[in-house]
């Protein structure tokens, strides 16, 4: 009898031991898997990135611009070349909209004649200032913070803009018009 419980004791110890080994190995694995979440905002994220000379964007017009994502890796290829819409309101004030529809992220297109952004996926439409005009989006287009430095239009970008409860209140830009001279 005592021999049996001794064997069982050994079994329990061996299981406990392996559980411990599992935890020792498991914790780093979980950390590794969660890296995309726990990496937080690194310095490269939302770095100021140039969209080119500011005179490429004529006053009163909305033009497509592209930038290489500041978080890009070598293996990303063309997927790191991100487009966005630049609206030069009056020569001094700009708006830079994300290409992604605020509904489900499809690429919106600008129609200068009707002065609307239209989405090809589920029919969302936005006015020229990015506010929602019709369709399934619950909000206006996402906007990037921008500044003008040495004649270059720069935006702060790095994250795929997505809707969602947190994004409903927070915007990429805090909707305060930034003075281009700041």
């Amino acid at each position, binding site marked *: 009898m005592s021999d049996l419980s001794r064997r069982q004791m050994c079994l329990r110890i061996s299981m406990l031991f392996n559980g411990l080994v599992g935890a020792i190995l498991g914790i780093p694995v979980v950390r590794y898997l969660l890296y995309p979440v726990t990496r937080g905002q690194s310095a490269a994220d939302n770095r100021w990135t140039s969209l080119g000379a500011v005179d490429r964007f004529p006053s009163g017009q909305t033009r497509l611009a592209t930038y290489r994502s500041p978080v890009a890796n070598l293996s990303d290829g*063309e997927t790191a070349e991100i487009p966005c819409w630049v609206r030069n309101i009056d020569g001094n004030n700009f708006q830079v909209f994300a290409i992604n529809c605020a509904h489900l992220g*499809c690429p919106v297109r600008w129609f200068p004649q009707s002065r609307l952004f239209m989405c090809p996926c589920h029919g969302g439409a936005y006015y020229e200032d990015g506010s929602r005009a*019709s*369709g399934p989006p619950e909000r206006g287009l996402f906007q990037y913070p921008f500044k003008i430095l040495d004649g270059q239009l720069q935006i702060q970008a790095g994250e795929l803009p997505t809707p969602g409860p947190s994004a409903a209140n927070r915007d990429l830009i805090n909707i305060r018009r930034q003075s281009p001279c700041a």
Partner: protein
Amino acid sequence: MRLIRTAAQWLDERLQLGAPIRDTMEHPIPRDTASWFYVFGSAAMTVFAFQLVTGILLALVYVPSAAEAWNSLQILNHQISLGWFIRALHGWGSNFMLAIVLIHMVQVFLFGAYKYPRELTWILGVFLLLMTLGMAFTGQVLRFDQDAYWGLGIGASICSRVPFVGPALVSLLLGGPIIAGATLSRFFALHVFVIPGLLIAFVGLHVLLILKLGINEWPMPGRLVRRSDYREKYHELTHTDGVPFVPYGVWKDAVFSGLILLTIAACALYFGPFGPSGQPDPRVIQTAPRPDYFFLWLYALLSLLPPQLETPVLLIGPVIALIVLLGLPFVSGEGEKTWKRRPIAVLTIVLVAVSLGTFTNMADHTPWSPVMDASTSASIPSKLLSGRTPVQIQGALVFQEKQCHNCHALGGIGGQRGPALDAVAVRLTGDQLIRQVLQGGGNMPAYGKNLDPAETTSLVAFLQTLHPAASAPARDASQAPGAQP
């Protein structure tokens, strides 16, 4: 021949698998179940094995890198001999696998096979369905083209709506802050290692349960399932009127599986591989991303749901569906098996099938999307222009120039996002037309800032001509002759 037998005996002496394999092959099944209705499960398994083989063949060439994946698909399609055919086999195999899994599920449901004691078999089957859908979605991503790129954006946007953990889920899905190399790598790992591994394990358990519990007997009206005596009755059925699985049942399985593989090959040969569409370059925005066939219903649903309902339906809907599917064998684990005496079961299947079919069909012509090029490619029918005044013709030009045609059809041409305007003057008076154009509303953008008075006047003048010859245009009752001031 003697050599083979000696070798087999030598092996079996060590492996000792001969007897269990013989038992499995000869296990008794109820005579009725050697039926053409019972072939879908084995066919699904055959197609799964087929997908494993063709998948490995593709992996010999495919490069899971965001910079290279699309090029490697081009090499498969155009350079390597019959690479296109292997891609087509894998693509069509995936469609057939999903279709057969769904048919299998409907058959199992209608034949009451999920009832006692096969609840766990059903539950494993529900997970197998989820994994098959997971394979379909991740596979679509590996075909790394425009649809895959923007499809990932849609996936990320849906994930972001989950309360509290939304942003973290997006990061986990994409493997980083944007859709890029890390995203493709993790979808490759899911599609090639994680989900297939789980599928193999779950298919193994699923089949093991069928062997342990026996195949579902042919449902007969009045033969009720009761937990107390089901096993005895089933034992009686298989041992008095049973036949061995091999050869009675298996030949139909084999014939059907063979036919399915042949059909997949025929489709692959005739229709060729799926895509890839344009390069996954987000700068190319002249694209209208579409999901693969089996997700088209979801695409339609996302367009048609009222905006406020969308997030709740997206997040709660799948949970409810899963609870219903997993709870089914516990709620109705006993009683009638036959569909002939389960009208609600039949109605449920019909309702789900009609809904999915309708949504899928709608997604084929996307009435909710503006026709992006209608303003330049769709013309206004000449009969709507002949005999009009210059102001009205000018209005037609405004209609075309301001992209009204993208959302409104005339003569059956143009977008269907808004109502067709062939008879709009019957519905709205001039004043109402002006108000609608300038202020929008009812899902129409307001054009007040975008039209000068002359444009508005001419546009409305044109719209007021749009009524059938036999019906008078709408008029304002307050301005009718004889109206009280």
